[in-house]
């Protein structure tokens, strides 16, 4: 696709998204809003997962931090909740930086376990510090401006902020910094030997990712008008991971596609059966086993096959993700 065609395609998509309240019903717009929030959250996680190769369980905690920023601003300081949106980026960045500084002292499995432990600490704090956070009850009924009480209005607000966030992440992802992250993902040790200060870059990525997860959380708090500890529990963090899995972790746009599929899938499943865990679990298992590079990977493979079928037949080079922990050249 030429750059001009790509730009045109994106303009069309943007137009369709903005005009959505005109042709989609109220329930659909609510779903669309959910999709944008989830997409932002998942794209921020993918900066770590897909780009840098860091499996972090802390992303639910940062999401929750963003939600609580909005809620606490309103609850304790009596300030407009909307201010929490830009503020959440700073708060999220700070919390992520501190968490990452500790968590990144370890690598691989241990790093992941550390992110779990640290984020659970945050969850417990939210749960237990009743005077500050209202504990298990959560904070509800957050006051929002009238324009956001309207379904379309809140959708447009979320869309605008979400799109800004995703574009910012896109810029970071494709920058030279992003190439260094990919090198780290591919071969951490080698990346150090070509001159990259791996820890520092990982911490930077972790901080940025956390900041935008918090941004997504702040949008959630405005949209749902509430914040509660359950948002921060590590099992909630499985959501963006599955979104990334569905959409594909090696393409930037993957998590966006994944968010669409996930929300629609989840909503239709919960409408039809009580046992949504069973169905969703089976679907995810299927994806893990059969199509781990997700939708975007599928598209890429198909596009590659189409391209090659016009030339001489060549061996299939669909990139199967392989174990990056050990490199075996004779595989």
């Amino acid at each position, binding site marked *: 696709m030429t750059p001009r065609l790509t730009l045109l395609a994106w303009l069309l998509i943007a137009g369709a998204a903005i005009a959505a309240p005109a042709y989609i019903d109220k329930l659909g717009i609510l779903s669309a809003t959910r999709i944008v929030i989830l997409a932002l959250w998942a794209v921020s996680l993918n900066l770590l*997962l897909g780009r840098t190769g860091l*499996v972090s369980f802390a992303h639910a905690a940062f999401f929750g931090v963003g939600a609580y920023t909005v809620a606490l601003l309103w609850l304790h300081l009596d300030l407009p909740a909307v201010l929490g949106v830009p503020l959440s980026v700073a708060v999220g960045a700070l919390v992520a930086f501190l968490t990452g500084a*500790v968590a990144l*002292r*370890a*690598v*691989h*499995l*241990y790093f*992941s*376990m*550390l992110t*779990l*432990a*640290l984020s*659970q*600490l945050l969850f*417990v*704090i939210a749960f*237990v510090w009743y005077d500050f956070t209202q504990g298990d009850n959560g904070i509800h009924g957050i006051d929002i401006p009238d324009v956001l009480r309207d379904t379309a209005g809140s959708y447009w607000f979320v869309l605008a902020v979400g799109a800004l966030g995703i574009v910012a992440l896109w810029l970071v992802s494709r920058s030279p910094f992003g190439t260094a992250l990919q090198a780290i993902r591919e071969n*951490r*040790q080698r990346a150090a030997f070509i001159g990259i200060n791996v820890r520092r870059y990982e911490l930077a990525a972790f901080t940025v990712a956390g900041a935008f997860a918090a941004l997504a959380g702040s949008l959630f708090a405005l949209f749902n008008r509430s914040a509660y500890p359950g948002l921060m529990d*590590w*099992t909630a963090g*499985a959501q963006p*991971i*599955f979104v990334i*899995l569905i959409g594909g972790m090696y393409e930037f746009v993957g998590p966006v596609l994944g968010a669409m599929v996930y929300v629609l899938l989840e909503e239709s499943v919960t409408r039809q059966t009580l*046992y*949504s*865990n*069973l169905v*969703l*679990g*089976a679907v*995810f*298992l299927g994806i*893990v*086993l059969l199509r*781990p590079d997700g939708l975007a990977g599928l598209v890429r493979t198909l596009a590659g096959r189409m391209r090659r079928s016009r030339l001489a037949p060549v061996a299939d080079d669909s990139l*199967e*993700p*392989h*174990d*990056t*922990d*050990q490199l075996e050249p004779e595989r």
Partner: protein
Amino acid sequence: MDLDTLVIQLLAGLTRAGLLFIVSAGLSLVFGAMRVINLAHGSLYMLGAFVASTVVATIGGDWGLFPALVVSAAAAALVGSVIEVGILRRLYRREHLLQLLATFAIVLIISDIVEIVWGTANLSVARPAVLSGSVPILGRPFPTYNLFIIAAALGTGVALTLLLRRTGLGRDIRAAIVDPEMLGGVGVDVPRLFTVVFVIGSALAGMAGAIAAGSGAVGLGMDVEILVQAFAVTIIGGLGSIPGALVGAGIIGVADAFGILFLPRLTLAIIFLAMAIVLAIRPSGLFGLPERT
């Protein structure tokens, strides 16, 4: 606080530690030998508890729990073997993340299956008559069942240690823990070894579930509740180390018991803090081997 209360609390902590140890030992072996984070371990524990409730209800409460221990372990082992052979085996050459996600998907599946089969209500399981009642310790009544739990934990520890140190299988497992890459090179049938380890781990989880069933209510949510604590124990004690799991379980169990007394709301936080500290300072845990970068 007087000495008597101290001792009683300590014993309560050891009871909790005992149960945690049995669960964590299985998790630690799988984690250590296969480098798999098996999130479904808690689900197998929960499955064991529910199966035990059915067995006890069928046979009768007077001694029904004893066969339940075996049945639960077997059921969990069976499910575990299906998981390993049918699912995990296909993912070993792939990213660790995919194995993790697969086990998480299995958590979802099992939790709903349990709900479908047993419903949502909490169930209670009758203890065997011989284990009911209490034993006076320092003048205070201490539940006999708790002593059973501690004994079961010690027995499990001894059995596992003997397995690891005195058998060929145990030698292979220890080799896997130390250097997974060398395994194939020294002529070990790796797929079979992995299946055996996973089945052992699953059986331990199931048996622990049955024991827990006799101790209190059986309900949904048991899977996640035990999982994080088991991970904390495994991390603190070190991957693949039975003594480590013992020490880790002891620390967590006792901290839990005393924490509930003094800082009830922060007990959980303390556990996570301990986990984080160990990971940050000595990631391989108290007894584990240093991880190669």
